[in-house]
């Protein structure tokens, strides 16, 4: 691993250099919506958007409202195109975004979500729609110094300065940045602007890490259920937990790791597309069979799926939790479901049962 240091001034020069070199640079940007937020200066959302200069990056950026995943896995995407020619369907493969991209300032939680999505979309049947974007992406992560009240990355095996998923990780130390160059992709980006970077010397992120974790309100390691989900499956605690869940789906849509999708056709008489759209296991019709049978007929069944997928099944199959502790689901849920508290509650219930 290459270790460098970067002044704030040189960081902006580097970013502007990347933009000027023709790369698509995506960074957190404050977008004012057309509502009240536009008038009183508050409101709007912080989102990952392409920038044309470092000045456009959101000041005081903590975490984006929506995760980075839409740049690898868009909310809606055409996966097949067809036309009817002389009465017969003629299929066409779509074009997919292959723009060379640098993503700036993903927090370690958001960056760690990327290898999780890689496991899903890679593997036996490689999803070229995701993988093309993935291969053309270089991730520059930004460590956290101010965990938010909802954050709990330390409870799921990460930390405010984790390297997972980043090609380069920047950590603010004093008024400079420690630059950890973690991959070849990262090296390429740094080498092109080598004069902006100095050697790290003895700059470390240990203190920053300690201090950030100290500020995190929810850092006690969360239990997981890969060994115990079978015994827990029929426990009444799920009814209790899911009672207020509306099945609105904002948790899945704002989650950096959720990836369930629907496939539907949309057509006119002579041409059409097959689309892949984001979906959510919390929706009532998610598992409904055409026969009318629904294996998950109540919200308790569905919410159980969410929790166990993240803290049992994915862990069993891929070796890690499907949660990065970003807390977006917690702050966006309209009824205040808190997955950190839910997992603890389920674990307590399992203890009472003697599991």
């Amino acid at each position, binding site marked *: 691993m290459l270790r460098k240091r970067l002044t704030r001034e040189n960081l902006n020069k580097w970013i502007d250099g990347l933009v000027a070199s023709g790369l698509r640079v995506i960074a957190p940007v404050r977008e004012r919506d057309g509502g009240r937020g536009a008038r009183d200066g508050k409101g709007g959302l912080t989102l990952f958007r392409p920038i044309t200069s470092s000045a456009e990056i959101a000041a005081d950026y903590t975490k984006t409202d929506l995760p980075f995943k839409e740049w690898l896995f868009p909310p809606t995407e055409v996966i097949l195109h067809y036309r009817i020619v002389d009465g017969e369907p003629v*299929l066409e493969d779509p074009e997919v975004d292959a723009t060379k991209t640098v993503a700036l300032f993903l927090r370690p939680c958001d960056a760690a979500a990327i290898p999780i999505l890689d496991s899903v979309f890679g593997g036996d049947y490689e999803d070229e729609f995701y993988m093309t974007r993935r291969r053309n992406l270089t991730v520059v992560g930004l460590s956290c110094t101010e965990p938010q009240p909802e954050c709990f990355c330390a409870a799921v095996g990460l930390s405010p300065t984790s390297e997972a998923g980043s090609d380069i990780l920047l950590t603010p130390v004093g008024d400079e940045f420690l630059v950890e160059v973690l991959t070849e992709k990262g090296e390429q980006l740094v080498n092109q602007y080598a004069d902006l970077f100095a050697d790290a010397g003895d700059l470390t992120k240990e203190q920053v890490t300690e201090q950030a974790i100290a500020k995190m309100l929810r850092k006690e390691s969360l239990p997981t259920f890969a060994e115990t989900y079978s015994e827990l499956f029929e426990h009444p605690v799920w009814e209790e937990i899911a009672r207020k869940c509306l099945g609105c789906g904002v948790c899945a849509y704002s989650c950096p790791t959720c990836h369930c999708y629907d*496939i539907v056709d949309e057509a006119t008489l002579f041409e059409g597309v097959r689309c892949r759209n984001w979906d959510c296991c919390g929706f009532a019709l998610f598992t409904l069979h055409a026969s009318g049978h629904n294996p998950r007929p109540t919200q308790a069944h569905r919410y159980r799926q969410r929790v166990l997928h993240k803290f049992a099944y994915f862990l069993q199959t891929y070796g890690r939790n499907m949660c990065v502790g970003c807390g977006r689901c917690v702050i966006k849920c309209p009824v205040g479901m808190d997955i950190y508290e839910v997992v603890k509650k389920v674990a307590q219930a399992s203890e009472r049962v003697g599991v």
Partner: protein
Amino acid sequence: MVTVTATGMAMPRETVKVSRNIYKPYLMTIVDMRDETHDTRTLRLQFKDPEVAQTFDWKPGQFAQYSVFGVGECVFTIANSPTRKGYIECTFRQVGKVTSALRDMEIGQTIGFRGPYGNWFPVEEWEGKRLYFVGGGIGTVALRGVMQYCLDNRKLYDEILILNAARTVADLVYKSEMDEWAKVDGVTLVKAVDPGGETPDWDGKVGLAPNVFEELKPTPDNAILVTCGPPIMIRFMLLAAERLGFKPEQVYTTLENRMKCGLGKCGRCNVGPYYVCKDGPVFTAAQLAKLPKDF
């Protein structure tokens, strides 16, 4: 086609055509069709691409996503055995949007076919064994491919008993085809309908499939039981199998769930940590016993 994010802001500067599209189906021509019951049809399909027609292979028990372009995709078992190549068959009940559109199609029209997906019946492990096949209603469709395979490789297996059960006489599938199978040496065919489902001239059994099966006094020694049907029938068949002394490793079934991708990514068809499309659809009773009641 250019991909955009929800806000339409992500105009890419460079695009590339997808070259190995895992979601792209083969094109198939409907070459024949047969109605099994008033609401269940079998289609015989052939690959439009002659090279694919030559090389396409699958194993008994695997499934595919069949599509009507513009309407959608639907999962059905590949209903013929790979010992009968040159065509693909599927049998489906008209029950929703895509199956209704499929039922509207005529011979000569084109549909899509994505597959083969899923695991398969381990027919090599069954060699030398006595085979019991118990199908309930539309569940019998899932067994046709593997039954054909075993009949086509008759010498590899001991006696074969097929119980074709349904709610009523009109709901029995593959009637005439199975009558032909019954003529094969060492193959016994038993037909059964639920009490109340018989016609005045019915000469088969009357009773629920698990009960009829028990009355046939099957022996579990060196035997394999393969069953498929509505969830409740499978449940009672597994209980009956246990009572009869079948070990759970000797009992096979095939599950279904609502599916979209069919290849283990979209997160919809899982039963606990296992995707029916990828780790199934074939499961033994031993594996089922470990699965959470999520189907």
